[in-house]
């Protein structure tokens, strides 16, 4: 898994012609090797710190704790519960954000009505909503999913709206002079032209969904990665906290990769500098 986003890999499906060869020119193996070296170094430093007596568990302790938690099914269950919350909130959030963002960008009236609320809620960190959500919705799944929804929604709605507003006027005119009417312009010009913005919004939204999840689980949950770490904190169980942190990091990274692949496939037509 290449953590560095190498521009050499930015070749969409249709790039068979002309300049694609020059872009492919750079060796692909190098960034991967650098990533591997960097990760190995990081673990080495961690090991050294632990050996020097800094209060962190040895990497081996963390691995064996992860093994134990996997063996009794706790880690799998926590991951599934946390993933379920993130995905539910994220899917609901983007599903609401994309149409609302489009409407805001396309109709001045909708924009005027919706924008103050979005700007207002944007200034409140989703975490600050948690106490209110818990009081109103209890300690079930609802408040957690709601704050994750809010985080994903706010990130995605703004960039969708930005995408629609910044569609090149000349492209809309080009479609109009070819006889295309409003509905066609929307579906065939505005939607594809704002796809890059939407995908960036989704990636940002996913990031804030993760961040919010852990905090939500720290406050009120009986299972999930955040809860597991909170619980471990009570017993001074550092290896478990590390297992939780690393799991969250890896899961977040994997989900981001999935969106990145989608982004490359859908927006490979963009001219990149």
């Amino acid at each position, binding site marked *: 898994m290449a953590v560095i986003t190498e521009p050499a890999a930015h070749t969409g499906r249709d790039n068979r012609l002309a300049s694609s060869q020059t872009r492919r020119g750079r060796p692909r193996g190098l960034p991967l090797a650098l990533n591997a070296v960097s990760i190995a170094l990081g673990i080495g430093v961690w090991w050294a710190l632990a050996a020097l007596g800094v209060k962190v568990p040895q990497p081996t302790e963390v691995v064996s704790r992860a093994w134990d938690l996997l063996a009794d099914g706790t880690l799998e269950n926590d991951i599934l519960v946390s993933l379920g919350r993130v995905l539910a909130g994220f899917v609901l959030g983007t599903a609401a954000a994309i149409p609302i963002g489009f409407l805001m960008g396309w109709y001045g009236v909708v924009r005027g009505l919706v924008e103050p609320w979005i700007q207002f809620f944007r200034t409140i960190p989703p975490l600050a909503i948690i106490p209110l959500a818990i009081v109103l919705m209890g300690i079930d799944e609802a408040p957690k999913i709601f704050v994750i929804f809010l985080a994903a929604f706010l990130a995605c709605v703004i960039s969708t709206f930005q995408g629609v507003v910044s569609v090149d006027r000349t492209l809309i005119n*080009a*479609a*109009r002079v070819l006889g295309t009417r409003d509905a066609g312009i929307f579906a*065939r010009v505005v939607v594809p032209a704002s796809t890059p913005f939407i995908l960036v919004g989704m990636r940002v939204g996913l990031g804030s969904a993760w961040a919010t999840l852990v905090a939500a689980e720290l406050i009120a949950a009986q299972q999930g990665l955040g809860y597991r770490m909170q619980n471990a904190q009570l017993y001074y169980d550092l290896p478990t906290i590390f297992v939780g942190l690393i799991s969250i990091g890896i899961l977040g990274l994997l989900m981001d990769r999935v969106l990145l692949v989608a982004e490359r496939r859908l927006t490979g*037509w963009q001219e990149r500098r």
Partner: protein
Amino acid sequence: MTSNSPRPGTQAAKISVQAVTKTFSLGRQTFTALDQVSLDIADNEFVTVVGPSGCGKSTLLNILAGLEEPTEGRAIVDGTPVSGPGPERGVIFQQYALFPWLTVRKNVEFGLRTARVPRAQRRERAEYFIRMVGLEDFADALPKMLSGGMRQRCAIARAYAVNPSILLMDEPFGALDALTRVKLQEQLLDTWSKEQRTVMFITHDVDEAVFLANRVVVMAARPGRIYDVIDVDLPYPRSEEFRLSPEFAALRNRVWHSVYHQDGTTPSSPPSPSLTTA
């Protein structure tokens, strides 16, 4: 010298601009982009419009395209006043305006899809016009892989594909280098001779204006108005020989004077081409 409407209001005119005035407000000031402009263009005529920046030539084109509305007066195409854009008036923009997410082929097919032309027929028509502009090897390429000249050829094919009777071209070669420009001018005339259309071509390049046109319309700025109309009564096809001929040079000098010496301060001798920068 000033003759506002060279071929006044015959009903047969393909395009008839009648006393069009366009004003914009910039803050508290009102800016007159076009002042009482009248112009008739005959069927299959190739008219170039040249003038200093701010003379309203692009505004005139946008009004004919239906992208802007005149403040006063009206634009008539085929006997009907223009109200909004339509596929019978193809527009070619200086910035190419290709849809970057579509291949050359899909770009050319765009207007045909709008017109609900069946798939097979769409393919065939697109194929024909892609070949006409010489892009057959790049039919499946995305715009980002094309050079500026190739992009503009694709835009020309896209405009032709919906079979417009009028082509409105807004400085289409303005962003290209001189060599490519000359090549595309010749290709455009070649295409035009095969597929005759009424063309209004905006440019700021005097050579280009004379090389392409049946008639050169010179505009003046502040307020934007027609300053002079110069007939180019020289036969097509035109090639390099034409470009280097004394007739071309004479016309070019005339247009040059008309564009660059609009205050009536005519110099004693025509400016030498080597000293001029447009």
